[in-house]
């Protein structure tokens, strides 16, 4: 039997959090096993020891013992609170990407995963990532709810239409692992799968260099030019559009007087519904790009906009990706 040779009981640990999840799993598993065995043993032992000997026999009545009831309420309470606190802490760790995470993008679509690297490379159902680098994946769906699941990294987050969700991991062990869609999404749900290839950083660089440039999508910079964004958002004081600076999480004041954080959702909305939230001091005259750009192009644009932010606001047309 071939399948018996390589019979796994636990999935591979290939991310920084995998070990933490497994530790919590083993702890919870130990508790589960302990109480299950305790109860099963007691039940079986009592059932044998106190087996009815004659039909005239009755059980020996007992008064309810308050201390006993309290004991077996409080001990489970303490245990589950430990589990809760441990689990909540780990949840925050898994859900909150570190500041130095590199941003990748994913679009879920019946029934495939489209990934984009920060360098602009696109892949379908395959994802190459370097080990030892925190990676943040910003995701959205083109149709129904999907869920991006990396069992080897112990992470998963639903991918929703009309909204960005995030997931992050730092792969530790080079190798090839599963990508699954975990949220039922229709006929070919079980084929919405792929492989994540974790590579040593040097290998990853080599892989990147070896990619044919033709596979690349138009970069954000090119889009910025071809969609004529540059005409209004050139970045000088007389421009009709606001300065595209401090875009990655910086605050901005709106015409309505409200202040909000310029996150991905805001930027995306500003491309698709430019007049929804207008920066203070500007008139809402930008046309909507809804229907003119694909989700992937928006992602490219967002990446480029954040690059401007890093390079500095004075650079109207900063050097794009190589």
């Amino acid at each position, binding site marked *: 039997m071939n399948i018996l040779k390589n019979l796994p009981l636990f999935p591979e640990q290939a991310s920084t959090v995998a070990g933490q999840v497994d530790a919590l799993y083993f702890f919870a598993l130990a508790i589960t096993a302990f109480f299950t065995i305790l109860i099963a043993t007691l039940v079986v032992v009592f059932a044998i020891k106190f087996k009815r000997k004659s039909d005239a026999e009755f059980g020996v009545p007992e008064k309810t013992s308050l201390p006993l009831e309290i004991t077996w309420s409080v001990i489970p309470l303490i245990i589950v609170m430990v589990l809760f606190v441990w689990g909540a802490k780990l949840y925050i760790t898994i859900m909150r990407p570190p500041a130095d995470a590199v941003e990748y993008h994913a679009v879920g679509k019946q029934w495939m995963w489209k990934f984009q690297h920060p360098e602009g490379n696109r892949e379908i159902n395959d994802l190459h990532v370097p080990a030892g680098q925190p990676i943040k994946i910003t995701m959205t769906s083109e149709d129904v709810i999907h869920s991006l699941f990396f069992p080897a990294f112990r992470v998963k987050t639903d991918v929703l239409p009309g909204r960005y969700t995030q997931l992050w991991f730092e792969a530790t062990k080079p190798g090839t692992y599963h990508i699954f869609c975990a949220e039922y999404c229709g006929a070919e749900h079980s084929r919405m799968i792929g492989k994540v290839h974790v590579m040593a950083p040097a290998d990853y660089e080599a892989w990147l260099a070896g990619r044919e440039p033709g596979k690349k999508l138009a970069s954000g910079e090119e889009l910025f030019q071809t969609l004529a964004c540059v005409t209004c958002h050139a970045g000088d004081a007389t421009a009709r559009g606001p300065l595209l600076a401090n875009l990655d999480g910086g605050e901005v004041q709106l015409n*309505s007087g409200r202040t909000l954080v310029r996150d991905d959702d805001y930027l995306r909305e500003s491309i698709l*519904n430019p007049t*929804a939230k207008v920066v203070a001091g500007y008139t809402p005259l930008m046309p909507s790009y809804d229907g003119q750009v694909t989700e992937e192009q928006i992602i490219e644009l967002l990446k480029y906009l954040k690059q401007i932010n890093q390079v500095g606001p004075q650079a109207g047309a900063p050097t794009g990706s190589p």
Partner: protein
Amino acid sequence: MSSSAHAPNLAHHFESYEQQRESASLGMWLFVAQEIMFFGGLFTAYLVYRINNPEIFKMASSELNIYQGGINTAVLILSSLTMALAVREAQLGRSKRIVALLVATFILGGVFVGIKYFEYSAKFEHHLVPGEHFDLHLNAEELAYLEKVGITDQAKIQSRAQMFFSIYFAMTGLHALHMLVGMALIIWLIPKAWRGVFNADYHNPVECFGLYWHFVDIVWIFLFPLLYLLGRNIGA
């Protein structure tokens, strides 16, 4: 059991009229609790989307006819009064008065549903039914208001207004359906009342139906301000 074996309208499994009456009333109240949760799902949806789109909901709400809504509120409250009085007459066992008040309740229910019909027709004519023909017309003043609060995107205004009207139709439609069911039940009650079966001991059907009718009234008491009265304060 034996003492009440020949009592009319006392079911065999009840020991006394009081037990029967209290069972019926408790049962009806549990059904009302169920109804609260049933409409509660819709109210939750209303709250979520209103919180997400406060200004557009105000604009969409202004499209509703406040006179039709207001008159219907008064009609329904009046029908609640006639219903409450019908229950009172049932407790006193005065058949003719019960019938008269039930008929009055039925007519008022009919008026409500009739007005609702005209209201719905107007929505169809004005393209305010969610779907591809949906088209909310806003006048310059309303547009200016929305612009002032930072909403100028027409597609967004249209889509969120559609959401408002989706909820409007779901809530008022379900409410109207409850009215129709109630009116059907009145038709079932009237001949019973006419035959004089209701008295101090046995009036559960009227009383329970009254609870249902009042509940439907209460739903409207909330629907009226939540759906019709938004956005009237603009420019005030």
